[in-house]
């Protein structure tokens, strides 16, 4: 009997969270996004290493060497669009600190997430785990592909420094 109640409570809680997510402003926006993005929504095909978006390991082809100019460009863009919420240390502000992020996630996952956050927050297990911690959906900051690549380079450089 106790177990049944527990199960019921869990189910209710789950239902509550789902409907809560549906009320969020950002989801209503994602509902209006291109049909093209919706068609990728097949959970069977979702690759948690790559995330969802236009970037793949092949397309970004990271080299071991850091491109300093690119990293500087990334730092500048981040100064306008990212660092209000993310520190470059491990400290959480609104979102998680960036230190170590390039070893936790692949480059393509990071670039996909920062350019296509809403669909990924809706299905990516790691992004959802972060949402439970931070409680703020990461906004789409309308980064260009070049912006996103430069920010990744800045993160890589940030992770190399002590």
């Amino acid at each position, binding site marked *: 009997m106790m177990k049944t109640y527990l199960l019921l409570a869990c189910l209710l809680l789950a239902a509550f969270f789902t409907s809560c997510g549906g009320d969020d*402003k*950002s989801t*209503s*926006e994602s*509902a209006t996004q291109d049909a093209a993005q919706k068609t990728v929504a097949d959970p069977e095909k979702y690759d948690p290493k790559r995330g969802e978006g236009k970037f793949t390991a092949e397309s970004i082809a990271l080299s071991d060497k850091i491109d300093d100019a690119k990293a500087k460009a990334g730092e500048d863009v981040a*100064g*306008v*669009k990212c*660092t*209000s*919420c993310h520190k470059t240390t491990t400290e959480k*502000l*609104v979102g998680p600190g960036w230190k170590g992020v390039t070893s936790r996630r692949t480059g393509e996952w990071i670039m996909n997430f920062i350019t296509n956050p809403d669909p990924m927050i809706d299905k990516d297990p790691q992004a959802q785990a972060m949402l439970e911690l931070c*409680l*703020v*959906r990461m*906004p*789409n*900051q*309308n*980064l260009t592909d070049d912006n996103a690549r430069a920010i990744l380079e800045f993160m890589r450089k940030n992770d190399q420094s002590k």
Partner: protein
Amino acid sequence: MKNAIKIAVLTGLIAASGLQSCKQKNIASAVSGDAASKVYVAPGKYDEIYNFVSGGFSGQMSVYGIPSGRLLRVIPVFSTDPEKGWGFSEETKPMLNTSHGMVPWDDLHHVQLSKTNGEVDGRWVFGNANNTPRVARIDLTTFRTQEIIEIPNSGGNHSSPFITENTEYVVAGTRFSIPPDDVNGDVAIDTYKKNFKGTLSFISVGKEDGKMDIAFQIQCPGVNFDLSRAGKGVSHGWFFFSCYNTEQANTLLEVNASQKDKDFVMAVNWKKAEAYLKAGKARKQTVRYAHNTYSEKTHSATSEIKTEVLVLDSKELKDLCYFIPCPKSPHGCDVSPTGEYIVASGKLAAVIPVFSFDKMIKAIEAKSYDGEFEGIPVIKYESALYGEVKKPGLGPLHTEFDANGNAYTSMFVSSEVVKWNIKDLKVIDRQPTFYSIGHLCVVGGDTKTPTGKYLIAYNKITKDRYLPTGPELSQSAQLFDISGEKMKLLLDFPTIGEPHYAQAVLASVIKDRSIKIFKIEDNKHPYATKGEKETKVVREGNKVHVYMTAIRSHLTPDNIEGIKLGDEVYFHVTNLEQDWDVPHGFAIKGASNAELLVMPGETQTLKWVPDRVGISPMYCTDFCSALHQEMSGYVRVSPAGSSVPIKFGTGVTKQEVASK
């Protein structure tokens, strides 16, 4: 006892069913069974049509979805709007400036969508201020008022903002004739005939940027100019204005301006006016009028006072203006899709006269005149008349057209819409409106190729159409299906202000132009803060500028000290978000001009003059995230002359003494 209860219940039931069936009968008599499905727009789906509706005495313009009748947006134009900060933020205040100073509330009457080749091109929508004469241009990528120009030599801008078929000009005809601005207006009111003049203004519109400029004005006899329409197709190059009070009365117009059997439609050859202008026939007149523009790059408005206008004289310059007699105080003056027919509605007349452009031109060539009125030829009524719609109803006002050669005229006094055929002038159908229709709108109803399908009636009287809300009611619009022979009432929906004219266009013409955010990279506001690193507090004498950023879910800086009594504090808030529909608000306790609302990538400024020593909280007013309630901060206000230094920050408070 039991029986008594039974009887009572039964009586109640019977009474209830009686009431219900009675009500259903009423609805059924006006609305057919499939009306609900025709106006139902499922959740998440879009309406088929944008309907731009004048907000009347609210001074704003509203946007409705058709067929649902849902209110999509109120665009602030001629009145302050606390919801959007319009007229409250430092950036928008100059938009309401006039030669009389700031006018916080006006009366927006008519709406015109910009056109190319006589079709709606989806770029801009214009509105007129009827009280302090102005014309506004609203950009349809942002749905914001971008420009407002004041009209000199005018007493009330009613026959406006009607436009030519390629948006060459927006016109503004004065409703009230007055002495011109450059003469001594301190004259006896009963010298109307001698001293009062009517002015028609032609405002040019920049082909690319839409920038408005008063190209020229035409000085006309003192009468009341009511409504107007540009010629199109065959009549392109002409403009038609309805005139009443040709009696030139200056008091009790209700009686004194209704004496004559016929007033006039004035036909203006604006191509001829352009030629006279080129030939240097215009007189330079010294006037004062405000021209206000809002830049989406600097997110700020500027107001400039201009001092000169070029005036053409309708009496001296021949072949510029002609009068066509028109029965009893014409109101609407509408041009058919081909441009051949001009429908003028004498609002006190028993017929609707339809004039022929072709006949009018021939009459001018043959000089088929009936004398002159103040030096302007009066064309013989019969020489310009195509025919009359007989017994259309009472109080004809406005006419719009469909794609099948039909016209729809609103009848104020008999409270109905009358459908009639343009060719044979026979009435086809009439439907009652609830109550007392003023303007009406057919989708694309003033274009060369109307869309038709729906007609919307804007009624002047609401009475019992909705649940009562005290003495003051919202206005009542009604949607009709006009795809068949008979018009079918589909829906009632409430509107803001008192809508005068409205225009409707297929959503596809506009919706993909709409932008979602302002790009932060393009923000050229002088006080923009692009990133938290740039946030600062700068003192310049007793002015303190706060360069503040807002992003979910904090303000930076959120702790500010060193403000003193006697300071003027300017909060320049930049919203760093770059996502659709994530505005942030800003409010601080005691601010006499209230709040800000800042769109993604935009900077807006709130001026705050603290009136007491202490701690003033500030916060975001637009629910932005789960931590919205945390998006707040404090400002410390010290006494005048205090030595508390400027300090600010979010998280760790850094100290930075103002340099200037």
